[in-house]
């Protein structure tokens, strides 16, 4: 589905990403992991055309740089880390914008199926009750779910998440990941997400890409990539031991 070939991103003389390649098939959930400064978010920015890069990114064989914005948005949706909204838009207004890329012409009326899709998106994210509420009054979790609903309304094949649950309570973290894994069950879909929490990566990811200081360390099957050998090299510590110690505190 998605093919990334020798992706390099530089800011001036500094190489943020150096020759990173990986690929993604349908129904896969690729977790991009690595320590701070590994270039995880930069991979996403390049794939979504937000920074200039060299190398090639193709979606179903087509160079992503040459796909027109609305066509790209029909295939790929992005959930960012955090949102600051200055104006009092309602939840529904934000979710409706997910259908932007699917609008027919200038004067075409928004059809009933659009209403259905928006309703459905609000339904599965549990936002139906607050659909007319101003987003300025929402909690961080509700806001994140609003944009998740927008993405569901956008109906892409590839979902890209940039640390989606970074600042969220555990309950929202769980909700978000459950919703996404439910979404992924439909055929033809795939997910890429950047995560900090290696436990989450292990629990939800089918595949993984491990980066360190802009370099590709390992990619492929989640279990292989997130093996303790790889992780310990990158993080300079025995990750498995640390995780087990943490977890031990939870045993009665």
């Amino acid at each position, binding site marked *: 589905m998605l093919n990334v070939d020798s992706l390099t991103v530089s800011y001036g003389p500094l190489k943020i990403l150096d020759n990173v390649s990986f690929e993604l098939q349908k129904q896969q959930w690729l977790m991009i992991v690595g320590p701070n400064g590994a270039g995880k978010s930069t991979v996403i920015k390049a794939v*979504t*055309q*937000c*920074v*200039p890069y060299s190398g090639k990114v193709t979606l179903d064989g087509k160079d992503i740089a040459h796909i*027109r*914005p*609305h*066509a*790209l*948005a*029909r295939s790929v*949706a*992005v959930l*960012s880390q955090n*949102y*600051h*909204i*200055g*104006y*009092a*838009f*309602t939840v*529904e*207004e*934000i979710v*409706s*914008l*997910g259908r*932007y*890329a699917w*609008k027919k012409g*200038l004067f075409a009326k*928004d059809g009933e199926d659009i209403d259905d899709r*928006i309703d459905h998106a609000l339904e599965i994210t549990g936002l139906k009750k607050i*659909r*007319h509420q101003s987003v*300025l009054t929402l909690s961080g979790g509700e806001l994140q779910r609003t*944009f998740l609903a*927008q993405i569901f309304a*956008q109906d892409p094949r590839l979902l890209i998440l940039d640390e989606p649950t970074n600042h969220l309570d555990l309950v929202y973290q769980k909700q978000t990941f459950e919703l996404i894994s439910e979404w992924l069950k439909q055929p033809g879909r795939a997910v890429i997400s950047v995560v900090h929490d290696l436990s989450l990566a292990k629990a939800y990811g089918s595949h993984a890409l491990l980066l360190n200081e802009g370099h590709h360390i390992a990619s492929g099957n989640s279990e292989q990539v997130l093996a303790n050998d790889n992780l310990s090299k990158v993080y300079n510590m025995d990750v498995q031991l640390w995780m087990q110690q943490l977890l031990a505190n939870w045993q009665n």
Partner: protein
Amino acid sequence: MISYMGNRARGYNWIEYLLFAIITMVIFVLCIFAGSVRVPAGEILSSIRDFISGQTENTNTAMQIMKIRLPRVINVALTGAALALCGAAMQGLLRNPLADGSTLGVSSGASLGAIISIAFGIAIPGLSGGSTVLMSILFAFASLVLILSLAYRLDYTLATNTIILIGVVFTMFAHSLISMIVVFADEKVKSIMFWTMGSLAGSNFKNAATLTVALVICGGLLLLHADELNAFAIGEENARHIGVNVRRVKLIILIAVSVLIGVSVSIGGTIGFAGLVIPHIARMIVGPNHRRLLPASLFAGASFLMLADLIGRIILRPLELPIGVVTSFTGSIAFVYIFYNTRRVK
């Protein structure tokens, strides 16, 4: 407001527009009947009837006054609509409630163009009367291109902060050029100082026609981009992700705004605060959705400026208070109120 809730996401609501249009019309009629000179209502009606049937050779005072008042009120309404629409569009596009054509430097660029045209007597062949208008638009557009290319150079994503910063710097630059022209040029340009304060006292039907054309084309263009403006108002990154062609839409909106501001400045001078405050008031009434905000701003801008001009025309009878003074006075009070309220909500 609650009754509209169900329709908020969808936007366009004809009953609401009708209501706005009626309010605007009522204010228009009020502004036609009231003025510096009191003319009996009956005479006004009959002279308007004559106007419509083309019998303008009528020599009574009411007719003569209507020849001045009618085009003036129309120009004021059109300018108010244009400025408020520009303000609403800029505030959405830049996701900055303090944005306005002037923050971007478009107004200053337009003023510079008009002043160069007057100072050096630049006439565009075949357009002797329209050269100031055209120079304003050209300069508004040229300043825009300059601001944008600088912004692109500094920041690939054309981030909003970069644009506003460059806009501020450009405004200072344009003002320094204006001051230079005024210092070095002869007495003729010294009278430009009157003009930069903004006045629609001497505007005519030709000006109104120019404004109408600009408003129909560029205002229409802005209204057609209501969804894109919503996306920008939520966030540029989000706009990109939902499929908005960010750079192209930005360019279209900025060009539409620069034409509208160029035409307004060349006809009425710089009228402050209308483009900044009116969209805020409109947003309080109809919410931030541009499908509703843009038409609401259009009507509110026209109404506000007509009332401001009416105050300017009658409060110091027989003197006139320049419209810019009235808008800045009422606008700054309204602005403090709005600012206080938005702070309190946070």
